[in-house]
């Protein structure tokens, strides 16, 4: 469902040009749980950002469900992010002024759906994440693991085609990390397409397929079927 054809991305750092991705071609099928591995600076986040429409490639093509993500207007790309993609970040990126339920509702609020209509769904999702007690709490009142679960609920609220996670446990202790991975795994089992960036091989093993990047290019692509699967 996601196709990259010779996608590349370069940045200007001062006068120097940095090639963060070089001619990457990749097909991600529906229902896959893809782990992206690689050393720091190898281009993992860049790849994920391109897939999620946070950025546009400097060369090559990217398609989601056959529709191009490259060369389209910012507004079109924004709507794809809003409706088709769910993001989970390393630093959670919740809005500190909003409650858990409001944070979860945000993508639908942007869509214009009245909060009263979204609220039951948001509360329901938070319940599924085991956060029924935390619905009206603000991020600063939550632990790291709880914040990340709010973020996952937020990513799911639009029933996105793909869930993108960039080092989702980079800021969590190992026990909490385990819980998050189990959560992602169970989502995968319910048919959710997931792309997760990590540099931890143990975490990557939760995926059904592991792609390794080196200096902006794919150096390895293994299909495992997933840990304990």
């Amino acid at each position: 469902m996601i196709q990259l054809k010779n996608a590349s991305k370069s940045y200007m750092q001062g006068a120097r040009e940095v090639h963060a991705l070089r001619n990457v071609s990749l097909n991600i099928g529906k229902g896959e749980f893809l782990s992206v591995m690689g050393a720091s600076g190898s281009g993992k986040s860049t790849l994920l950002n391109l897939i999620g429409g946070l950025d546009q490639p400097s060369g090559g093509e990217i398609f989601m469900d056959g529709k191009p993500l490259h060369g389209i207007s910012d507004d079109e790309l924004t709507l794809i992010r809003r409706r088709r993609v769910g993001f989970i970040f390393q630093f959670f990126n919740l809005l500190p002024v909003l409650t858990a339920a409001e944070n979860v509702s945000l993508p639908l609020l942007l869509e214009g759906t009245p909060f009263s209509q979204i609220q039951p769904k948001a509360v329901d999702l938070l319940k599924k994440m085991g956060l029924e007690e935390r619905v009206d709490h603000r991020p600063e009142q939550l632990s790291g693991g709880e914040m990340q679960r709010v973020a996952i609920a937020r990513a799911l609220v639009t029933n996105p085609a793909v869930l993108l996670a960039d080092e989702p446990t980079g800021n969590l202790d190992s026990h909490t990390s385990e819980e998050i991975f189990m959560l992602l795994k169970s989502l995968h089992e319910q048919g959710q397409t997931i792309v997760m960036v990590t540099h931890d091989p143990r975490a990557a093993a939760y995926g059904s397929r592991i792609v390794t990047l080196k200096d902006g290019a794919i150096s390895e692509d293994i299909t495992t079927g997933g840990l304990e699967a």
Partner: protein
Amino acid sequence: MNILQLLRHISVKHLRHQKARSLMALIGIALGVAAMVSIDIVNMSVLRSFEDNINRITGRAVLQVTDAESGFPEAMLDVVQKVPGVEYAVPVIETNGCLAWGDERAFAVLGVDVLQDGNIRDYSITDESSDIPDPLLFLARPDSILLTREMAAREHIAIDQQIKVQTVQGTRTFTVRGLLEPDGPAKALGGDIAVMDLYAAQLAFGKEGRIDRIDVSILRGESLDTMKERIQAALPEGYNIDTPAGRSRQMENLMGRFRKSMDMIGYLALFVGMYLIYNTVAISVVQRGREIGILRALGATRRQVSGLFLGETVVLSLAASLLGIGLGIILAKISITAVARTVSSMYGRSSITDLTIIPLHLAKDIAIGVAASVIAAFFPSRSSSRISPISAIRSTPYSSDALRRHRGLTIASLAFIGIAGAILLVYKTAAHASPLRSSSMTIAAMLSLLLGISLSTPLFLRRFISMFHRLFAGRLGAGGRLAGLNLEKNLTRNAVAVAAVFFSISLSVSSSSLLFSVQKGLMDYIDDVERSDVLITSGHPLASAGAQTIPMPLEMALEIEAIPGVDAADPFRKLFITISGRRVLLEAIDIPRWLKRNTVKVVKGMQGDVGTMMPGKDVISVSESVASRYGLKPGDHFTLPTPQGPVRFLVISVVVSFASDSGVIFIDYQTFRRIWQDHNADMFSVYVRPGNDVIDVRDAIRELYKDKRKMFVLDSREFRAEIKKLLDQSFEMNNAVNLLTLAIAGFGIIITLLASVFERTREIGILRSIGMKRGQVSGLVLIESALLGLAGGLLGTFAGVLTGWINLEGFFRLDFGDSISYQVHYLSICWALLLAVGLAVLAGLYPARRAAKTNITEALSYE
């Protein structure tokens, strides 16, 4: 609208969280709107009161015939009465009297034809004097006067009481024969009005055989315009036939300058408010960068993001504008009495009892408040929509699109500066009479210039920092280097602080240079034209637009010259004449005597001609503004309305005069007496013989007229001090605004630096961990702060010098001619720069302390 949802869920909470900053912006706009509202209410109330007074005093008259201020022959009454279609035409003398005791209470005196006036005006007289049975007849006695019940009560005057009233002929004694009930004309001017018989008034006020006005009512079915034409045709040239409304309009024109400076204050206040909004939104965009990134990543469009900030601005400014309306009404209530007093002494008697509040104007002020805020918020909210989602949510943001944004800023900045230049060009080349030549144009140019320069602050700051690196950074050690780098890293945010300093400094530099120029120009002018030792004036010596005064008889010159030590007392007569609907000051001067001791600055024409050609002849000189308004040059002829009908005068020179913003025409006193048949003076310039003490002479004059006449006797020092006081006063308001903007600028610096200190917690922690001392950390922040202040100060000085000149154009040269030269006040520039840096360092103290207190271990484990 989903923006509303975002506003409800996100913005309201932010507004609540950033109480202090939101409150500042709210107060800023509220004050701006309040200033506009109160100025409008006061203006409208003053005008309405003038209008009301005029309507009450004119009664049923629909047309009024007037001439020069000194009146015209009563024979014209017959002429007007005979015009077909005229129902009634009644003569009126309207002048001023002043109770010779107690405080200076001046009142209007209406001299009317007792038998006829009832056709035009209604009087209800009660408490008539008991010894004269016919209420109408008692007025025929020359010493009879009617007062209003209000005034009698206030001054404790009873029926049949004798009162001393100062008149042109000195103090006269009248007997109060009755009291007027508050109705018709008796309700005008807050009751400060007295009615006399026409003949008695003519005698008392030195107007034998003359009247000031004819009030005309017309027969049913006659049109106003035809009647106007008919009367005009019947009378010699030079008479004005106007409706009461037209007279109110004249009053309005007369007050134009007063309103202009008031409006200027309103605009300035609003601009300060806009600045606060800009500052608030810009900083809020910077601080909420991460939030914006998250929203963008989750699918908020650019329009939604900028809409969020604009929406917040609309909500805030709407609340602020409503608050401003309330505040403005309160302000108007408080200031109306003081304004009414000023207006009465400078422009004409008015009595303002009620505030005139026009709902439509209030709505307009709200709209302006909101629109101004949205304009101010436009640029920062647009930049908010440019924040890229990735850089905002990264732990260490890259500044990728900074360069492109700066190119846009440069273009916008140049565009605004270009617009300012274009407006000035149009203004300078427009004909004097053109509507393009107005102070709104210069205000627009000034605002556009300030906006343009504000937008260039990021660029300027970058240049400034690179210069700092090259020249000084090495000498300031590691702190110096780091300070420069830090400022560069967050150029946009730091530029906001610089812009705040820039704005306040430019205001203070421009107003002090303006003040200095005007002061110098005016003082030089006075030193040229007014070298007398003692000045005697009948009205306030600085009343500019012919507020009614009681002129002094010419014979007083002889009395004064008889005082020991007095060398000469030169008479001046100043009155307003109306030339094609506009009032111009006619200044009659005894040229030969005057030129003995004073000089005149001739702009066009021969210097010597004034002395040789003017005395006794039908020759005039005109001020620069009159020359350009009517296209006059030496050798031209110009026709003036006179009591003898239109008279053609030869213009021999164009001279400098600041005597009136309506323009001045000079005439020799002898010529004036011959043609106007007026033997009064509004001012005497007294010269003291060498060896005599000026103060003694001044006191002797005061003593001589102590009980006889209310007048101002000032020695030249007092006179100059009085002028300086007035000048200073008009700039006091400006200084208050300057102070406010400086405080705002300081506030902006504090916020900027605090934000930057918080953002750099980790960096500061690292620096501390590798051995930077607390003192070095706070030094670093203070250097940054001082640099921000200096950059803003330099830019502000540059802009201030320019805007000072622009304001001089729009507010002085426009009315007084080009002869006033622009003087940059260097001392105040030094002060401004010192103040900018000092204030910045002061503002940096708190953030510096916060930075020095950074806890190393916490900072390093953060995030």
